[in-house]
Structures are given as C-alpha cells and as structure tokens.
C-alpha cells in the first residue's frame, strides 16, 4: 500500500466529506434546526468542491494522479483495487458534481423549507454526491460501477422521497428497475472485460485494448455494446428512457441535480472514459449514433405535447442526452463532453427555475394554468430566459457553442446526420419556447385568488440561480472554437484522456451551418411567439399540434410505457404466477410428494395383508412353510 501523502488524503476526503454528511444525519438530523442541517449538508459539499479545486491544480499536464488505497476484492488472479484515478476528465466531473451539487444544496434549503423530511433529504443528497464522486473518481470499472449503482440507489430514494404517495414510490421503483436492466448489461460488459483483459483498471485496459482487438476483433465490439447498453439505462436512452420522465416525481432540486446535471450524464462519462475501446468498435459507434439520434428526435417530439413543466424538461433532458450520444457515436468525445458541461449548467438552471415557479405557485405544475409570470417572478424569469436561450443554442450563450461543436463534428461525418441533429435543435427550440412563453408570457390563466398568492422565491433559492445563469451564459467560453479565434481550452485540456476529434471541417462551411441553424431557430422563436403570445388563446391553439399526424401517438409518448407493460412487466408477473401454480405446486411438489404418496400407497397395500383374520394368517403361515419347504426340496 502506497504511503499516504497529501494527495491521497485530499482525494479520499473529496468523496468522504459528503458521506460524512450522510452519516451525520443519523447523529444530528433530528436534533438540529433546519437551517443548521442545511448549512452543514451544503458545507460538506462545498468543502468537497474546494478540495476538488485543489486537485484540479495538482493534475500533471500529461497524466493522471493514481491513488491506491486497498484491495476491494481479491481472489487468485481476480483483483479489484479500491483506488482513484484523478485525471483531466474526472477532475472536471468532480468540480461539476460538487459545484452544481453545492448550488443545489443551497437552493434546497429554501425549496424544502418546512418539509417533514428536510434533514433526510439532505442526507440523501449528500449520499448521492458521494456515489457520484465515487463514479467519476474510480480508477477501475468495478468501483465505477459501485458509484453507478449507488447513484441509482440515491435516485430511487429521492424520487420516492415523498413515500406516502404510492405513485411516487412506483416511479422510484421503475427508475431503479429500468436502471437495473441497463446495469445487468453493464455487468455483462464488466465480466467480459475481466474474461479478456484480466483486469478492471482503466489504464491497464487501455494499454491492452489493441492487443485484445488483434486477437479477436469481435470482443471489443461486444464489450462496448454491453457498456453502451448500461449507459442507455443510466442516461435514459431508447429503449430504456421511460423511467426519466416518471422520475420527476421527486422534489425539483433532485430533478435538477440527478436527472439533469449529473447522474444521467454518467453514461456519457462512461463512454468517454472508455473511448479507447469504443474507438475500436465501429459497429457499436454506429448503433450509438442510431440510438442517440432516435432518442433525441423521439424525446423532442414527445416534449412537444407535454403540459407538465417538469415533464417537458425531462423529455428535453432525454433529447439532449441523445444528442450527446449522437456526438459520441461519431467520435466527437470532446464535443459531447463540452455539451455535457453546458447542458449541466443550463438544464440545472431550468429545473431550478421550474422549481422556483412551482414553489411560487404552491405546487402547480401544469403550464396551461400558468402564464404571465414574468412580472411576478422577475429574477426567476430572467435566469430562466438565459437558460432557454442557452438551450436553444442562440449565440453567444454556452449552448450555442457546444451544440454547434457537435453539429460541426457531425457534419464532418455525414451531412445527413447533421440534418437530423439540426432537426433535433429545432424541436428543442419549439418546445422550450412553448414552455417559456406559456409560463412567463401572455396572460395569466389562473384564478385571481391563486395569482395573488404567487411570490418570488427567497434569496437562498435565487442565489444558485444567478450563479448557474452566469455559468450558462459564459460556460461556452471554456471551449471557444478556432473559428472564433478561440483556443479550445477544454479539448486541449482533455487531450491526455480523449484523443482529439479529427472531424474538422473548413471554416467556410462551418459559418454556413452555424448561420442556417441560428436562422432556423430564430424562425421557430418567432413562430412560437406568434402562436402562444400574440394569439392569447392558449391552450386551445395547441389544437394545431393536436391535428398533427400521430398526435395521439405523441401524446401517449409513443406507447413505450404501455408496450413495456404489455410485453415485459405483465408477462413477467404472470409467468412467475404460472410457474408458482403449475411448475412448483403441480410438478416439482407433486413429484416429490409422489414418492411419499407411493410409500403410503405401498404400505397401504401391504397393510391389507394384515387384515386381522386369524384364518387368513393361518393360511399365510401354512403357505409360507410350504413355500420354504418347497424351496429346500428344490435346492
């Protein structure tokens, strides 16, 4: 075991501090006041964020910090170390997790005010931060998987946070189980990795990838496909995306932290982390492109019809994640990661803004019943607007840079793909504008009494909004493309982890593409403005959407839930009952019991010989003697 220098201790403290917060709940959760609990819980994460900053400063230019603690599992040739690898990729993720995490902690102090489970909520959030840090800091797939499942657990706990509501706990179950299906494939991938690599450590695997690939080309393809299947579960890609919209049952800060900014991006992190393997699996990459594209378009279309403010954002998240996978599939790892970061900022902001709206409206989530909130919730409105502009990718906010980067990379691969990517951007623009306009603009569509009660959120909730708004606005400057004379800092920083994407297109084309998409987005903005604000007869004007072909199809979210219910859930339950009824009781038990019954039957038959008739016994005796004598004679 390596000696413990400061780096060891710091990198251990980063995840342990939030964990301490979790265990602290058992010590002080019931005893301290709300504000103290909230401050403490946020404090752990903020400390952790600061330590991440320290580690950020310590990263060597061309390598990673490896910190080994002890062996987690060990048997023969099978070893899983409990060790961290802090490199460029993970340190940014750490900062993202702890940074956004602390903002959301602070926000929650206001949002969860007065809730029965106030301190429990913070304990869960702290635990989540711990697992997320474990996920991104691990130096091997198994430890990463521990974090991976752990965040799933926290997601389960937080979605079902208001456990008295059976629908919420059902949503929590669904989230966990669907994730588990993905995790099962991921586990297969892990087993395959051990079978062919004999280790789980990233650096070893990356070193051996080429030789394993040379030995059998199919293996890397299978492994990457399985890992990707795991990623579809966690990152809510088709066909495992159905849990994420339901997951909105949790408190809104949870949606912002887990289901927008951090956990759901774990799949993208995983693929970037394994980019050496994925680079060797062209077939997998094509599947990723198809799945990513399908997800972004399908989710975008479903989002058009949603009326719950959080559901719209949830499908938007699915759609954006699909876009990231799309980018990963074409090999634009840095672009995907860039979008991951900017998306984390503006989507967290959107959710927190939505939370602020819900908070202000005392729990109302239906956008048809909102409208004209811009006057009543000024600060929320401004920050929300910034986020919307960022997500629909208007320059110069962060979303513009990252989405443009993706689209530019994709165009280098194939213009057709670019078209679909741009289409997804237009869908985004439409539903986000619809959401924004219905909520903040136009006339108020709620009863006067309710309207009067609407209030701006407290400053403890607004402060994180400001910070995130700033990040959403300026986050794009992390990676200004060369076309604007930027240095592409992020991409260069990630170089030790991710090879530079080679899909560069010339600047002229890039300008044209950028122009086309921006103009189209602006067009959508005006169209929606006309539709939802000018006409003033919302939501009836949504009839336009209703007359669209497949409207019902969209409304029912492509019947995914119904399909899964009919094809998997119900048959599984029926099948188990069938087995219980027909195999277990009718065959297995019967066969076993039949041995007992057979002996009962035989003894019953033999017992008839002992019928109590003396004359019968006498006959039996004589015949027996006769038989014995006969045998003696014959012998």
């Amino acid at each position, binding site marked *: 075991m390596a000696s413990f220098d400061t780096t060891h201790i710091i990198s251990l403290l980063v995840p342990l501090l939030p964990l301490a917060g979790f265990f602290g709940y058992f010590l002080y959760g019931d005893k301290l006041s709300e504000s103290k609990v909230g401050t403490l819980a946020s404090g752990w994460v903020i400390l952790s964020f600061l330590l991440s900053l320290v580690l950020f400063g310590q990263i060597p230019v061309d390598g990673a910090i490896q910190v080994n603690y002890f062996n987690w599992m060990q048997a023969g040739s099978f070893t899983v170390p409990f060790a961290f690898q802090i490199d460029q990729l993970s340190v940014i993720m750490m900062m993202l997790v702890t940074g956004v995490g602390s903002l959301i902690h602070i926000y929650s102090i206001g949002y969860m005010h007065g809730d029965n489970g106030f301190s429990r909520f913070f304990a869960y959030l702290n635990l989540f931060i711990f697992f997320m840090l474990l996920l991104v800091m691990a130096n091997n797939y198994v430890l990463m998987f521990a974090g991976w499942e752990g965040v799933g657990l926290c997601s389960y706990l937080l979605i079902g946070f208001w456990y008295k509501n059976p629908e919420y706990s059902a949503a929590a179950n669904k989230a966990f189980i669907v994730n588990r299906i993905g995790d099962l494939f991921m586990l297969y991938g892990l087993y395959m990795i051990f079978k062919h690599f004999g280790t789980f450590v990233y650096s070893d695997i990356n070193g051996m990838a080429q030789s394993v690939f040379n030995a059998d080309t199919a293996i890397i393809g299978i492994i990457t496909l399985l890992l990707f299947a795991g990623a579809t579960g966690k990152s809510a890609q088709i066909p495992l995306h159905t849990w994420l919209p339901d997951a909105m049952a949790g408190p809104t800060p949870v949606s912002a932290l887990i289901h927008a900014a951090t956990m759901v991006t774990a799949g993208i992190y995983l693929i970037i982390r394994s980019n050496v393997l994925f680079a060797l699996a062209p077939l997998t990459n094509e599947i990723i492109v198809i799945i990513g594209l399908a997800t972004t378009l399908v989710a975008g279309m479903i989002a058009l019809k949603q009326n719950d403010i959080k559901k719209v954002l949830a499908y938007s998240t699915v759609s954006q994640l699909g876009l990231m996978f799309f980018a990963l599939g074409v090999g634009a790892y840095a672009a995907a990661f860039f979008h991951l970061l900017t998306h984390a900022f503006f989507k967290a902001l959107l959710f927190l803004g939505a939370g602020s709206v819900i908070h202000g409206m005392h729990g109302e989530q239906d956008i048809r019943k909102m409208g004209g909130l811009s006057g009543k919730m000024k600060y929320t409105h401004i920050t929300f607007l910034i986020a919307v502009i960022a997500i629909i990718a208007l320059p110069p906010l962060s979303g513009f840079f990252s989405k443009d980067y993706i689209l530019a990379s994709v165009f280098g691969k194939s213009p057709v793909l670019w078209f679909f990517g741009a289409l997804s951007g237009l869908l985004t623009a439409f539903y986000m504008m619809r959401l924004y306009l219905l909520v903040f603009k136009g006339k108020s569509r709620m009863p006067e009494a309710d309207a009067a009660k609407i209030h701006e959120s407290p400053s403890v909730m607004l402060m994180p909004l400001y910070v995130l708004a700033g990040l959403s606005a300026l986050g794009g400057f992390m990676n200004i493309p060369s076309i604007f004379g930027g240095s592409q800092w992020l991409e260069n920083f990630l170089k030790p982890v991710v090879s530079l994407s080679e899909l560069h297109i010339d600047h002229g084309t890039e300008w044209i593409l950028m122009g086309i998409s921006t103009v189209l987005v602006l067009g959508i903005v005006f169209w929606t403005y006309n539709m939802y604000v000018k006409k003033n007869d919302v939501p009836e004007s949504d009839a336009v959407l209703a007359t669209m072909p497949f409207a019902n199809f969209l409304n029912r979210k492509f019947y995914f839930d119904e399909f899964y219910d009919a094809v998997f859930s119900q048959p599984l339950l029926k099948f188990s009952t069938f087995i219980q009824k027909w195999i277990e009781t009718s065959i297995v038990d019967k066969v076993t019991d039949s041995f007992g019954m057979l002996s009962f039957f035989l003894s019953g038959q033999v017992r008839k010989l002992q019928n109590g008739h003396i004359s019968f016994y006498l006959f039996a005796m*004589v015949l027996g003697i*006769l038989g014995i*004598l*006969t045998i003696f*004679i014959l012998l």
Partner: protein
Amino acid sequence: MAAALFYALSLICIVSSLIMIFHKNTMYSVLFLLVTFFSVAGLYVTLNAQFLAIVHIIVYAGAIMVLFLYVIMFLNMSHIINFQKSKAIKIAATATGLMFLLVIIAALSSATYNGNVTAGHEIGLASTLGHIIFNEFLIPFEVSSILFLSAMVGVVIFNKKDLIDE
C-alpha cells in the same frame, strides 16, 4: 400279524381323524379324536413304547379330552354348530393340506436314513425312560412342572371374573 395290527390301527386313526375334522358336531369331533388317540396309543404299543402309550392315554384321553368336554359343557355347545367356511376356502384348505402332504412325502422320500439299525428291545420301557428322564433330563423335567404350575396360575387368572370386570 403285527403288520396287520399296524395297518388296522393306522386306518382307524386316519379315518377317525378325518371324521373329527369334518363332523359338524363338536362333541362328535372330540369323541372321534379320542378314537384317534387310542389308536395312536396302539401304534405306540406296536412300536414297543409301552410307557409312552400309557402316558399318552392318561394325558390325552384322560386329561385333555376331559378338558375339552368340560369346555364344551361349560359353553353349552353340544348342539350342531352351523358356521362353516365357504366351499372355496374348504377346497383351498384341503388342497393346501394335500400339497403339504405331498411336499412332506417328497422331502422324506428323498432323505436317506440308516434303516438297518436294529430296534432296541427295552428303550420303550418305563424303567429305561425313567433312567433317562431322571438322569439326563432332570432339570427339564422339573422345569416342566413349573410350566404346569404357571399354566395353572394363568388359567385361573384368565378366568377370574372380577379381574375381567375391573
């Protein structure tokens, strides 16, 4: 003459025992068994076993038969008893008995024994037997008296009415 005597006695013996088992009246059965006993005693005499012949008559004809008769009188059963087994069982019983006979005959005919041993003159005499019983078999002899005693006690206990009723 002796052979004729043997055959006559055997015939009486067999016939009377057959009547014994087939007769419906229990009383007659007992009486025909008595005939059988006497003819068996006669056979003992032809075998020069006078002492056993006498004991036989005393024990069987004297004691056992009297017991049977007492019981019959006691149970008041001198009438004809009508319960009979079914024909099939009777035939089966007869067949079984005949098969038994066949098997025994077969067994004995296949056995070899030294037939040329001269018969002893005096082994059947009371004095000879008395010597044997009181020398070689003294303890069994005494034990048999205990057997009688216990049989007596047993019988008394069996039929003590108040013990049963309790």
